[in-house]
C-alpha cells in the first residue's frame, strides 16, 4: 500500500478553494481522478455539482480545460470532442466526461448509450451521489429504496436503484470499474488503467453527499467504507468481459464477512423513516446482487484463466 501511495502523481489539478460543500465526496474523487489522468485531458462537464466545483465565471478552480454541456448531451459532446480532435490530428489527448447520476442514469442515458455503442474513444465517469443533489436533493433513478428526498418527502423512494453498470456492460465496452473516494488508491489505479485502454471506458464512482444524505461532513470516508463493507457498493472492474473484485471488496468476497446494511443506513438521515421490513427488503436486494457478483467472479476466474 505505501508503495502505491508514493507513486501517486504529486501535482494538484484543483486549486485550493472551490465551491464544493464541506465533506464533498466528489471533490475527493475528482482530485484523485485528475492526478491519475494527468496532462492532455479535456473534461466534459454537465450542469451539476462538478460545474459548481469548476467555478463561476470568470474564475475556475481546475487546471484542466473543461467544456460545459447541456444535461442530456455529455456522451454526444464527448463524441464531438473526440471527432474534432481526430479531424485536427490531435490524437494524444484523452476526453473524459465527468457526469452526475442525473446526467447519466436519467436524462443523459441516450447520448451515453449512443457514444458507447459507437465505441467512442473516451472515458465516461458517472459520479453517483444518488440524487439531484445540485438542485437540492431530488429523487433520481439512482436513488436507493427507502431514501427520503425533496421529491419523495413523505413516503421515501419506493423503487430500487437502477443497475447502470449492467446497462453499460450490455454495450460491450472494454473497461468498466466502480470506485469510491474512501479507497483513493483503488480509484487512482482504475483511472490510470482506464487511460491506457482504447474505446469507451465507464467508471462508476460512489459519492457520499453530506447535505443530500444527511450525515456530518466528517463522516464522508466512513460512509464510503460502510457502503463497501456492507456490500451496498462493491468495488470491482470488468475488463473485456472479465469481472474481478478489487481492494476491500475482494477481501470481503474471499472471507465472506460483509456486515449488515443497517450499519450503513442508520448513519444517514435520508433512511430515517425506513421500517424494519424495508430494511430487510434492502438487505435482500444487496445480498442477491452481492451473491451474483461473487458467483460471477468465481466463474470468470475459471473461464478466463489459461
Amino acid at each position: 500500500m505505501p508503495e502505491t501511495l508514493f507513486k501517486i502523481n504529486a501535482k494538484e489539478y484543483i486549486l485550493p478553494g472551490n465551491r464544493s460543500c464541506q465533506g464533498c465526496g466528489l471533490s475527493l474523487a475528482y482530485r484523485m481522478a485528475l492526478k491519475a489522468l494527468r496532462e492532455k485531458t479535456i473534461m466534459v462537464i454537465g450542469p451539476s455539482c462538478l460545474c459548481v466545483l469548476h467555478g463561476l465565471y470568470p474564475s475556475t478552480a481546475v487546471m484542466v480545460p473543461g467544456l460545459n454541456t447541456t444535461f442530456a448531451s455529455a456522451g454526444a459532446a464527448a463524441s464531438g470532442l473526440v471527432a474534432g480532435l481526430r479531424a485536427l490530428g490531435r490524437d494524444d489527448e484523452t476526453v473524459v466526461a465527468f457526469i452526475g447520476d442525473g446526467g447519466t442514469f436519467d436524462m443523459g442515458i441516450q447520448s451515453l448509450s449512443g457514444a458507447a455503442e459507437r465505441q467512442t474513444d473516451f472515458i465516461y465517469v458517472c459520479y453517483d451521489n444518488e440524487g439531484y443533489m445540485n438542485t437540492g436533493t431530488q429523487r433520481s433513478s439512482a436513488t436507493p429504496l427507502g431514501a427520503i428526498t425533496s421529491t419523495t418527502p413523505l413516503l421515501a423512494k419506493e423503487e430500487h436503484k437502477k443497475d447502470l453498470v449492467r446497462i453499460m456492460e450490455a454495450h460491450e465496452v472494454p473497461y468498466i470499474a466502480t470506485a469510491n473516494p474512501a479507497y483513493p488508491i483503488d480509484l487512482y489505479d482504475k483511472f490510470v488503467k482506464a487511460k491506457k485502454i482504447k474505446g469507451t471506458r465507464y467508471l462508476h464512482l460512489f459519492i457520499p453527499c453530506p447535505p443530500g444524505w444527511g450525515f456530518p461532513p466528517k463522516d464522508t470516508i466512513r460512509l464510503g467504507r460502510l457502503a463497501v463493507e456492507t456490500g451496498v457498493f462493491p468495488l470491482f472492474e470488468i475488463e473485456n468481459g472479465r469481472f474481478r473484485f478489487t481492494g476491500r471488496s475482494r477481501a470481503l468476497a474471499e472471507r465472506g464477512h460483509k456486515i449488515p446494511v443497517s450499519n450503513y443506513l442508520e448513519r444517514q438521515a435520508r433512511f430515517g423513516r425506513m421500517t424494519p421490513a424495508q430494511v430487510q427488503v434492502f438487505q435482500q436486494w444487496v445480498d442477491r446482487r452481492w451473491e451474483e457478483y461473487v458467483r460471477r467472479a468465481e466463474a470468470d476466474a475459471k473461464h478466463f484463466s489459461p
Partner: protein
Amino acid sequence: MSRVEIMTGNQAAALGARLARVQVVAAYPITPQTSLTEALAQFIESGEMKAEYVRVEGEHSALSVCIAASTVGARAFTATSANGLLYMHEQIHWAAGSRLPIVMCCVNRGVGAPWTILNDQQDSISQRDTGWIQLYCRDNQEIIDTVIQAFRIAEAVYVPVMVCYDGFVLSHTLMPVEIPDAERVDAFLPPYRPHTILSEADPRTINPVMFADPRENAAGVLGDGYMEMRYKLAGALTEALKTIQDVSDEYARLFGRNHGGLLWEYKTEDAEVILTGMGSIANEATIAADILREKGVPAGVVGIRAYRPFPVEAITHAFRKAKSIHCLEKALSYGFAGPIYTDLRAALYGSGCEAAMHDYIASLGGRDIQPDTIAQVVFERVIKPEADGRFHAPLWINCRTE
C-alpha cells in the same frame, strides 16, 4: 473548372459542405433531409471527402457533437428538418450562446402533430429567436452557393448559420447546378480559426455558470456578465447584416452568381404591388407577378433571403414605393399572424411607407400553391384595397375555411 450537373437540393447542399471542407459531420436522418446525410456518408466513406462522420442516435446529439467539435476547432456541419430541428432546440440556443460558427441545413418541413412529412417553414421559423443567422434559398444553385457562403459568414462573426430550403420542393427536385471550382472555394473560404483553444497550456472552463453582474477574475480583470455576453451576441447578428451582403458580393465577383445577399428583387423598379416571401414560394411569386402585370397590375417581388438578422434598412428601401404589400407565408405565429407580416409591419412602421399590408397563409404541410392562385388572391385584394393600414388577420389560401 466549374461544371454543371443535374442534382437535387440535398445533393447540392452535400456538395456545398464537401467544397467547404467540413471536418466533422454529425447528423440523424429525417425526411426530407435524409438524402443529404446519405450523400455525405457516401463522400466520406469513399474518401472523396476527408471528415469525421459521427452517426449519432438523435438530433439533440447531432448538434451536441457539432458544438463540441467546433469548440475544439473543427469545421462542423449538420442538417435536419421539422421535429428533428425542434428536438435540437436546447442545443440551437447553446450553439449561438457559445458563438460557434456551425452551419446547419434546415430542409423545411411542417411540424407535427399531426404528422406531415411535407413542406412548410414552421420548423425554422419556430427557431427564430435562438441567435442563429437564417438564410432562405429559392433554388438548388442558391443552396450550394449559400452553404459555402454560410461558413464564411459564420466564421467572420462567430454566429451559427441555418441554411433553410423547402423540403421536396427543392430537396428532391432535380435542377441544373453549377458546381464551383474547389480551389477557388478554398481561396474564398480560408481554414476555420476558433475563438478559444481548449488546451492545458491555458486551461479554461468553457460556458460556466454566470453571475448577474460582471465580476473580476483572479488577475483582477473585469469579465462580462451574462447580459454583456448576450448583448455581444445581439451585436454580432447586427454586424452580420453587412457581412452577409459583403460575402454575397464577393462571391458574385468570384463565381459570377449573385443571390442578393439580404434580399433579392424582381421587377420592383416600377412596382406598386409587392409580393414577398422566403424560399421557393417567393420564386413562385415572380410568376404570379408576371400574371398580375398581364392584368395591368404593376407587381414585383421582394424575396427575403436573410430572415435573421432581419434587414430593416434594406427592407425599408425595397418597399419604399409600395402601395400594397402581400406576404406569402409558410408559417404562422398562432394567435396572431404570419412572421413576415409582423416583422415587416414593425420594420416599416414610421418609415414613410404607407402601403396596405396583406397576409396570406399558404402551403402548410405541402398543400399545393400555384402562381395563378397567388395572382388571383392578390388581384382580389388589389382591386378592393383596404383603405386603412390597420392590422388584418391573415387569409388562408387553398384551405377549406368554412
